[in-house]
């Protein structure tokens, strides 16, 4: 979904449950509690981050993946940035603060399955750099209830970036 409203909005109970879930998740990532964060994923997670090709508006948006992970490769990525002995990009750790907003939850027709669209703004500060940077984008999450609690089964982060700044993306969005 890129701008258009969800086909059918969820009821308030689902909306609140998803909002609570995304806020909790953001707190875990900002707190670098990656072990707990991995617990929020389904075993068949797909995690994709895209950037945008700048081209004539008549030709429509064109996104391309800069991250495309399954559970296995996402696990490798997270282990690398969570172990101080295995990362230079995240040691000293970058500081992040995530803002999740503009949530729209689709009624996916099943109580154990939600499709959530949210805006994401991540402030990130590296080392002793005097100023921080921002990643901005819109996420589409497919959330599934597993053993009574919501898990992320599919995440697509469409970044509003063309040329990325300051080296490599080394945090989870």
């Amino acid at each position, binding site marked *: 979904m890129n701008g258009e409203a969800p086909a059918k909005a969820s009821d308030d109970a689902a909306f609140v449950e998803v909002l609570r879930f995304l806020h909790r998740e953001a707190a875990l990532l900002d707190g670098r509690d990656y072990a707990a964060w991995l617990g929020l994923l389904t075993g068949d997670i797909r995690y994709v981050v895209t950037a945008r090709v700048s081209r004539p508006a008549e*030709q429509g948006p064109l996104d391309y993946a800069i991250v495309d992970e399954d559970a296995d490769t996402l696990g490798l990525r997270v282990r690398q940035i969570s172990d101080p002995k295995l990362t230079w990009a995240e040691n000293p750790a970058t500081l992040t603060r995530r803002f999740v907003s503009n949530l729209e939850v689709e009624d996916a027709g099943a109580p154990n399955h939600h499709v959530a669209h949210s805006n994401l703004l991540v402030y990130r500060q590296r080392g002793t750099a005097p100023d921080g940077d921002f990643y901005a984008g819109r996420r589409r999450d497919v959330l599934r209830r597993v053993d009574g609690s919501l898990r992320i089964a599919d995440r697509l982060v469409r970044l509003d970036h063309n040329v990325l700044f300051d080296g490599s993306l080394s945090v989870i969005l």
Partner: protein
Amino acid sequence: MDDVRHTARGESWVDAAAGTVSREAFVSDDVFRLELDRIFHRLWIFLAHDSEIPSPGDYVVRSMGSVPVLVVRGSDGELRVLLNSCRHRGTKLCRGEAGNARHFVCPYHGWSYALDGRLITTSYDGHLPPEMDKADWGLVPVPRLETYRGLVFAAWDPGVPALSDYLGDIAWYLDTLFWRSPQGMEVLAPPHRWRVRANWKIGALNFIGDSQHVRTTHAGPITLDRVRSEKDGFYVTGGDSFQVVTDRGHGCTLTYLAPGMKEENYLTHPPALGAAYAETLGADQLAMLHHLRVFVGNVFPNFSFIESQVALGEKAVIVRQWQPLGGTEMEVLSWVLAEREADDGYKQRALRHGFHNFGAAGVFEQDDLEIWASATQASDNPIAQRYPYSFHSSLPFDRSPCEQGRWPGTTYRPSNTEVAQFAFMRRWQAAMGSPDRA
């Protein structure tokens, strides 16, 4: 140009006898401006792969040093490289990075150009004096444009040698990556692009042959690699490994399986494509590829390539343009390629695995970039610049090449010295010192 030259402090930044290079070369904006004049606005610069613009009207916007250019496929199917700046008052014809056009219309006053750059109309042709010939006012074409194995290169100096002469012996190695199947390679997605506050030469040096950084910089992905472990000798340089230096400062590093490494863990090339390679490559090139684990190199000045099988499955071919933005910043463009003959599933895996390792969020890339930026930052001050960079571990080796005649270029062992890096720096110094040294 002499005024620019004299503002750069060193006449010579590279001390060939001592094995050192002034740090000024890696931070100074004066050096950068001289590089634009002597290197980027003169020599052959890699711009694109022809599979990025397959149809008439397709274009991408790229840079040659500080010069923005359109790489466009004309209605006649021919590639052209044109200055992306209106002949009237300079406006960019294309303000994005890619697209398809029937012609280029300037958004300012409406001058309109054909895909081949010809000026069609100024919108006010009736106001033009008779002595203004529209044929002289087309988009500026780059004087030299050649494609090698799908790789598009252009040069602003009309006097540069033919591209095949410029590439020389490195072409044989490029063939083993970019022409190893009858249909050749294709780009699998638009390039990743990112800026990093590091000098462009650090990227070129890292790719021409910096085996020494792998264990320290990339401790993360190496430790997490489950199949190809340190115990298996994977990260020990195999005895067959070697470095190549060719004329004009090109070079590459070939790292082979070490003895005792379990071959089945190192699917060197997809079996389905093996037959295709035999159709295209010579026996000596096939022998070169056999058991090759990491293949990385640089074409002077700023075109790099790597094929590596690290951490994950498919061997992805990745190419780079290190685009200088100043003494202390560059933009990196990074593409993933595969053989056109490969099936879609293979291409998707190669793409995913390729940028999982090397790209805007690569698990190898992120640690390289952090370190390159810190090297640039810590050298960007006059005190640090009293102390040159060390390339000493080239000196004991660069007078004693090995196996002359077996492989093109000049070859050296072991593969984890700084021979190729220092050859790049000597070539860079020669190009900076004399505008005639194409």
